[in-house]
């Protein structure tokens, strides 16, 4: 384990930024935080969650896939892919680190998505333990330890120091580059900190929420539940929950006619939108009840079914704090799980 005084944080960022672009949470000037490319003057903001999750780095909201040139009856296909630059993401919370695993299983399974893989391969993730989790946090339900976040490098922040521990080869290489700014240390400072975090986690209002009733093979049990109608009653059908979610990965592919060619781009899509499954001759999910059900069934049943029981939710709590009508996965889990009738 290495340690670095917080007073040298800027030097540390400077050093990281020399070899790879550094991104970290900074103010969005509207009360929230957003991952920002570090430059002199950009302050690291130690907030719990950024509004947008870091999935943007690997799966951006919109990205151009290819271009076409059209001439008469002829088409030319232009492959516009470029090698991603190396980059480092600093300050990723344990839940968000876990979300990368969820995304990996989709995009890196055969056939591999080269756009995603390209950026994923060039990133080094420095995670950050959560000193002050929020009431909306429920990562513990998914076996995530906020006191021991994963990632290439794990970090802990005390009053005056930053502690760094490499978990992977990539992480070790990065820490080696920072050896001049850091000093070797043991975990005597970090252990009590972890203890403290774990104690706070135990006091979370959503601590103890159970996933026992969800996962593989539960499709039939919940699909026809009358509760869906009740739960989705107030749903506006907006895409807030899906767009702030670190694990929502559904996308749409669209064409944009620029006048001189066509850009085919991919953008986030939301199962909450009415046209998500609309085809020329009909829609298999015509009502908001069905669309609402799809989102939660996907996270709690379908995804685990296809991915060895791994849930497609990491308990980051973004949907809890951002849903315009305060309907969210926790309420769904509790209602379906029978805690509240």
């Amino acid at each position, binding site marked *: 384990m290495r340690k670095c005084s917080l007073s040298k944080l800027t030097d540390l960022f400077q050093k990281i930024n020399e070899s790879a672009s550094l991104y970290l949470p900074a103010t969005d000037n509207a009360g929230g935080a957003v991952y920002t490319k570090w430059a002199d003057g950009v302050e690291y903001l130690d907030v719990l969650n950024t509004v947008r999750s870091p999935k943007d780095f690997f799966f951006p909201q919109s990205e151009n896939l290819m271009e076409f040139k059209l001439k008469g009856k002829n088409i030319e296909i232009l492959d516009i892919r470029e090698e991603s630059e190396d980059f480092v993401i600093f300050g990723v919370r344990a839940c968000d680190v876990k979300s990368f695993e969820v995304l990996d299983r989709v995009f890196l399974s055969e056939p591999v998505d080269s756009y995603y893989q390209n950026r994923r391969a060039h990133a080094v993730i420095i995670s950050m333990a959560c000193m002050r989790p929020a009431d909306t946090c429920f990562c513990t339900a998914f076996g995530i330890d906020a006191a021991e976040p994963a990632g290439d490098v794990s970090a802990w922040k005390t009053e005056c120091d930053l502690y760094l521990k490499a978990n992977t080869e990539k992480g070790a290489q990065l820490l080696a580059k920072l050896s001049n700014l850091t000093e070797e240390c043991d975990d005597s400072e970090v252990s009590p900190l972890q203890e403290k975090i774990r104690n706070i986690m135990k006091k979370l209002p959503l601590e103890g929420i159970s996933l026992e009733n969800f996962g593989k093979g539960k499709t039939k049990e919940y699909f026809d539940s009358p509760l869906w109608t009740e739960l989705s009653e107030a749903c506006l059908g907006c895409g807030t929950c899906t767009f702030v979610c670190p694990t929502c990965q559904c996308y749409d592919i669209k064409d944009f006619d620029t*006048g001189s060619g066509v850009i085919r781009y991919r953008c986030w899509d939301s199962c909450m939108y009415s046209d998500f499954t609309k085809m020329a001759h009909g829609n298999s999910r015509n009502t908001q009840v069905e669309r609402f059900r799809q989102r939660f069934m996907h996270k709690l049943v379908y995804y685990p079914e296809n991915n060895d029981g791994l849930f497609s939710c990491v308990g980051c709590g973004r949907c809890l704090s951002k849903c315009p009508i305060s309907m969210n996965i926790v309420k769904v889990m509790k209602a379906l799980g029978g805690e509240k009738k």
Partner: protein
Amino acid sequence: MQVNEYKPLIVAFCCNWCSYAGADLAGNNRLNYPADVKIIRVPCSCRVNPMFILRAFQRGADGVIICGCHPGDCHYTSGNYYTRRRMALLFSMLDFLGIERERTRLEWVSAAEGAKFAATMNDFAETVAALGENKRLEDLRCKK
């Protein structure tokens, strides 16, 4: 010395009954106005949805002008009165968003006013040329 070759692209939405005929008359009378004014004929000036104007800017227009019948002369009785309110509010909103207010204009041109049409276009083109390229409402994907 370098000569400034910049010529603004202007989209003019012209009402079928007055302004389009006015443009026709300007042509018949051999009155000059810039070739970079692209006329789009609409059944009435009130057919112009705010989205049309924004789309024009997206697709590379540097200025957008809407021409309709003089108030009171609308072929459909009152279309241009609605246009007047809509455009007043839209132009004000675009200005509020920091889009140069000189880039949009609403003008009444009758079928008999070929000269006014040409003069309006010349003046508008000059005003927009002075502003330079539209940078604030552009879509980079369309710039090639």
